[in-house]
């Protein structure tokens, strides 16, 4: 596992946040996980996503260029598998969603989570390791490692970029 803090310089980070906050950036309602994998009651199984890249197609050219590209430029990506923005709104308590992997491509692939904002949510891994949500932090790990995200209670929402690649 590799944790990279201050991935973007201040100017680039602000540009990314500007795009993320833009009212023109649309969000789609989505399950956090399939209900079989989800730890909690179905009423909590809701987040908002913005699909950027999936199956070799760009679904959001603007987010691809203005959000994904500056972050992707900081790491070596041979082939992107998928990328999306996740927004989990604030909850009354911290809820761990459920251990999962993002796909079944195995350990040759890498999963990345970039944290846009600082909050008391976190990513927890199957070995118990916790990576806190710190703005401008990127965590990279082998895609076969199970992990879970959480809600947060101290900000309006928890914003992350989720990417998977070779």
């Amino acid at each position, binding site marked *: 596992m590799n944790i990279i803090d201050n991935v973007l310089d201040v100017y680039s980070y602000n540009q990314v946040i500007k795009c993320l906050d833009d009212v023109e950036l649309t969000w789609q309602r989505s399950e956090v996980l399939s209900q079989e994998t989800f730890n909690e009651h179905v009423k909590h199984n809701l987040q908002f996503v913005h699909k950027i*890249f999936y199956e*070799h*197609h*760009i679904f959001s050219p603007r987010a*691809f260029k203005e959000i994904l590209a500056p972050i*992707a430029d900081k790491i070596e*990506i*041979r*082939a*992107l*598998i998928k990328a999306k923005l996740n927004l989990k709104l604030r909850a009354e308590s911290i809820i761990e969603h459920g251990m999962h992997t993002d796909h079944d*491509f195995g350990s*040759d*692939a890498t999963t990345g989570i970039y944290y846009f904002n600082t909050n008391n949510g976190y990513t927890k891994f199957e070995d118990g390791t916790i990576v806190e949500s710190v703005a401008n932090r990127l965590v990279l790990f082998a895609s076969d490692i199970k992990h879970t995200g959480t809600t947060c209670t101290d900000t309006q929402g928890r914003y992350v970029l989720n990417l998977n*690649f*070779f």
Partner: protein
Amino acid sequence: MEQVKLGEVVSIDNFLDNSEWIQIKNLVLYNPDFPLYFQQSVTGLEDSCFKDGFWNYALKHILYQNNIPLSPKFDIIYDIFWPKFKIFLDCKSLVRAKLNMFPYTPELKEYDQHVDQKYQHFGAVFYLNTCDGFTRIGENTKVDSIENRMLFFDPSVPHNSTTTTNAPARYNINFNLL
């Protein structure tokens, strides 16, 4: 059916079924509006038609590169080939896809050897027309250009392409896959 293993050199004739093959031919070979772009260096290395001989060039059409579909033709080609790749290869993602056209020359010319990527991966060369050009892998393996043939190999192994002496041009589509 057993899948092609990484590092194996395998060619498969009649790779596309008839309707797909006609669709691809109509898209590329019989389409005067299919755009191709001059490439003065075939390998992207030191070679150049301005230095090594006027024959030493190619025309290309990038379909997909750096995770970006770059061609309006990408979807048609992707939709035909990707499901087939999933049958023949244990591949999960596309690195690059491009179409090449190599010129006629009075004598057969071989381009410089090169690797597509330094890491081991799947390469797929689809031959669009039959001619006396070929793909050379390493020093000794030659795969002839036969229409509707697919060649799988590892393009981190040095390889090269050629011109043709018995057709107006030599066309293929190259894919790099992980």
